[in-house]
């Protein structure tokens, strides 16, 4: 229905708001669990960005892995830490850490927009043309990138075996 075509700028602003506010809340929340939930929301925002950039499979991968597994791990680790440790971290003085971050972000955005304004009409276009449909993702991975796939497998096996050995030793 062409009547409710949402202009792409609105999508971008909404997703950016969700992602950035989630990330800020994740750092500044007074309870660690709130921070983990805000982080999950921020990850879902990133997945929304992948959808708007025409990579739906990557978006689903992001949700399933980051929000589904890694946030669970983070939550579990937060619950492992005793409450006293969490409260100590809250009571320590902030010493202007948040404001330094804001200053840096502000300067960086000023620099980027200055470069963009100076470049003018010679700016390269934002997206390379031609997105990869999902059915092509598998063959491309297997045929054009076999070495990174094997390196990934080795990396994951090493991580897993290391984690298992560590978990065995601690008991």
């Amino acid at each position: 229905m062409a009547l409710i075509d949402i202009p792409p700028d609105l999508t971008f602003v909404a997703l950016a708001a969700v992602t950035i506010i989630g990330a800020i809340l994740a750092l500044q929340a007074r309870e660690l669990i709130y921070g983990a939930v805000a982080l999950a929301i921020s990850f879902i925002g990133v997945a929304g960005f992948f959808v708007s950039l025409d990579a739906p499979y990557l978006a689903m991968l992001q949700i399933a892995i980051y929000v589904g597994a890694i946030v669970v791990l983070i939550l579990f680790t937060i619950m492992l830490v005793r409450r006293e440790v969490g409260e100590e971290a809250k009571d320590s003085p902030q010493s202007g850490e948040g404001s330094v971050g804001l200053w840096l972000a502000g300067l960086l955005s000023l620099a980027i927009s200055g470069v963009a304004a100076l470049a003018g009409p010679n700016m390269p276009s934002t997206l390379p043309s031609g997105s990869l449909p999902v059915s092509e993702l598998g063959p491309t991975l297997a045929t054009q990138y076999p070495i990174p796939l094997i390196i990934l497998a080795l990396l994951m096996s090493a991580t897993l075996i290391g984690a298992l050995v560590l978990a065995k030793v601690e008991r």
Partner: protein
Amino acid sequence: MNPWLAIVIWGVIIVLLTGPMITLPIFWSRRKPDPFRDMPFESGQVPQGEARHRLVMQYYPYLLMFVVFDVVAMFLFAWGISFTTMPLDSSFPVILFLILLAAPLGYALHLAVRKENW
């Protein structure tokens, strides 16, 4: 219509129609905190100790395994789609991928069988 837009609309409708199910009863229920009513349920006895600090550590390796095999399963889905249209020799990297990951799986299962705790 863009399917993602349909999903967003569907999600908004669900939240709009089930949100009142939780928020309305809050408004028409008693709101005075009562120490006897709000005590956590422990079959009648008075709860002692911090409710949240007791934790089972013995199943932690399963969580780690889940993270890794989550990634593996996602890669396998990408491969499995085009399996019927690809010649067999282009599946060799993926099969090697699986075999390389069978090693930690086998090690984990060996540990699980040998140790009693997990």
